[in-house]
């Protein structure tokens, strides 16, 4: 009960605040910006064909009315919310009149699949390997792993991606260069295996850097942890090393890692812009790139809203789960 009042409710409230402020900001920013999206859109539409000034003005009027920009800001704001709550993000300018929500809904599973898997793999392996290498820092294998990571970590992402493409797609030709999958979507081996086949290189390119990052974080947390009084004491008492590693070291280094996982999970909803562009992977990052390129305002807005809600929700979930991991939060 106490936990509900002092821990859970404040966090729910915080979520509501973050989402509210974020959505309001996305409403205000384009309206305060000197560029008028309607003019920009019309300019693009009329770029390759001339139009007489009268019908241009008429079209401008009707577009403004279509977007409700002729109403007062308050009215617009209310309409904005009521449409959002119905899941209506407006039409895409680039693929008029396809709804933005439809575009995002198509792209989202790709991104969640790719980044979700990559995050799960890199988090788990980074945390475990880092803890092992930190705990058994005198062993040869631990030093070899660390040497590897220290070299891999600073390599810029684009270089990793291109090297992977050169080796596996161009030279060995084990994996495809671009694309998301092959065949008709369905729950059959052919489709699923093609998902893995196409997703492998993009996922690997992300996993390398992300694992290295986790590893470095886990190792330094472990180094602090093994110097702690309770680990030293358990070692002195000749508690088996495996037990110390698991219940004393890894268990404690996991706490900050769990919090940090929230940020990685939230970031999934932004998509992986560079990865998806490099591998032409049809996820959120890819549509964002195209939307920016085409000045597709509504799509950019939609992705922004999605990432605001995504990050806020992921942090909320982790916050709510955190007491399960840390008794000091659960039992006060």
């Amino acid at each position: 009960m106490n936990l509900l009042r002092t821990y859970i409710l404040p966090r729910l409230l915080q979520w509501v605040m973050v989402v509210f402020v974020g959505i309001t900001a996305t409403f205000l920013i384009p309206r305060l910006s000197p560029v008028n999206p309607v003019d920009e859109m019309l300019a693009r539409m009329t770029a390759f064909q001339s139009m007489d000034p009268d019908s241009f003005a008429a079209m401008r009027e009707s577009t403004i009315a279509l977007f409700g920009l002729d109403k007062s800001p308050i009215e617009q704001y209310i309409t904005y919310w009521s449409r959002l709550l119905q899941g209506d993000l407006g039409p895409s300018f680039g693929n008029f009149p396809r709804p933005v929500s439809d575009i995002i809904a198509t792209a989202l599973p790709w991104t969640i699949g790719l980044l979700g898997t990559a995050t799960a793999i890199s988090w788990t392996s980074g945390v475990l390997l880092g803890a092992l290498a930190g705990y058994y820092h005198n062993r040869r294998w631990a030093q070899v792993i660390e040497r590897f990571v220290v070299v891999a970590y600073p390599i810029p992402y684009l270089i990793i991606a291109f090297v992977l493409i050169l080796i596996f797609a161009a030279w060995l030709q084990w994996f495809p260069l671009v694309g998301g999958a092959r065949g008709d979507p369905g729950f059959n081996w052919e489709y699923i295996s093609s998902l893995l086949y196409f997703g492998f290189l993009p996922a690997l390119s992300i996993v390398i850097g992300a694992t290295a990052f986790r590893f470095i974080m886990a190792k330094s947390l472990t180094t602090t942890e093994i110097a702690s009084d309770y680990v030293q004491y358990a070692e002195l008492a000749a508690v088996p090393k495996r037990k110390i590693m698991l219940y004393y070291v890894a268990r404690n280094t996991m706490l900050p890692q769990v919090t940090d996982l929230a940020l990685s999970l939230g970031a999934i909803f932004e998509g992986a812009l560079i990865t998806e562009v490099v591998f032409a992977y049809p996820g959120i990052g890819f549509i964002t790139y195209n939307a920016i390129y085409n000045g597709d305002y509504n799509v950019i807005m939609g992705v922004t809203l999605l990432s605001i809600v995504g990050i806020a929700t992921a942090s909320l979930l982790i916050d709510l789960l955190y007491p399960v991991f840390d008794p000091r939060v659960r039992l006060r």
Partner: protein
Amino acid sequence: MGTIIETNNLRAYYITKAYGVERTVKAVDDITLRIQEGEVYGIAGESGCGKSTLLRVLLNAYEPPLTVVGGEVIYHLDGERVDAADMTEEHQRDLRWRTISYIPQGSMHVLNPVRRIRDSFHDFISAHRDVSKSESFELTANYLRDLGLPEKVMASYPHQLSGGMRQRVTIALATILWPKLIFADEPTTALDVVVQRGVIQMLKDVQQKEGSTLILITHDIGVHANLADRIAILYAGKLVEEAATQTILENPRHPYTRFLIESLPSLDSREERLSIPGRPPALDRPPSGCRFHERCPLAMDICKTIEPALIEIAPKHFTACHVVEEELSHASAV
């Protein structure tokens, strides 16, 4: 009752090297002592005089930069004489908790914050005995009850316990397997007076139950007065006086010991006592001769150059001081 642990001319230095400059801290320098089975042996001295260092070497739990550069530590366990330096890692792990145990200094943080007390007990017990979880829990519950600790601490996490309770739980954790030899480093420091009394009583109970040997380190002479059978006074890495507790309290001979005893607040007068003038010397360049000479009101010329030997001035009363030695030779000459 024989000797259970002894040191002979033990020297343990911290040898560090930073930017090519070697620094040697002579934290334990030429200490010889014999501790009897079943006694409470108190070790006292100012902060930084090498108490914890001595303890870690006695416990055979030290690593660089701390290095034993001379002398030896000998255990006498089950009629066997074991040189600590020759012990295998395995033998060592075997002895821990079952035979030799340790209550650490500042034991506020020695309990794993994310583990329930009973699980910590199970970790420590099962490391040495083939027991199931429920057997460990039962053993723990019985032991805690014997020591008068509430049973509900079993299911608690460390942060839910008060400082005093955590210290008691730690003492229970250290002694759950009835070790013969218990080392305790400042077990009552950082506790308030009332809680201290409870902890002292608990240590007494634990020690008396099985007649364990307790090696008790604290700078607090009051705690020694309550618990110790014999007291050793350490000054700047040297053993300067050793005698039965009563002798140390009532008839201290070494000038440093006298200061220590006189600076004790007595029960009837609560006024602030004089503290010892000056500061303890740095142990990387200890003073020549008697290490106390810079602060000693009785210092003579010889004190600056020649180190006094530890001599037996009365039965089982040892002290290392030129003035005391001189008085003694005068007395015997008369």
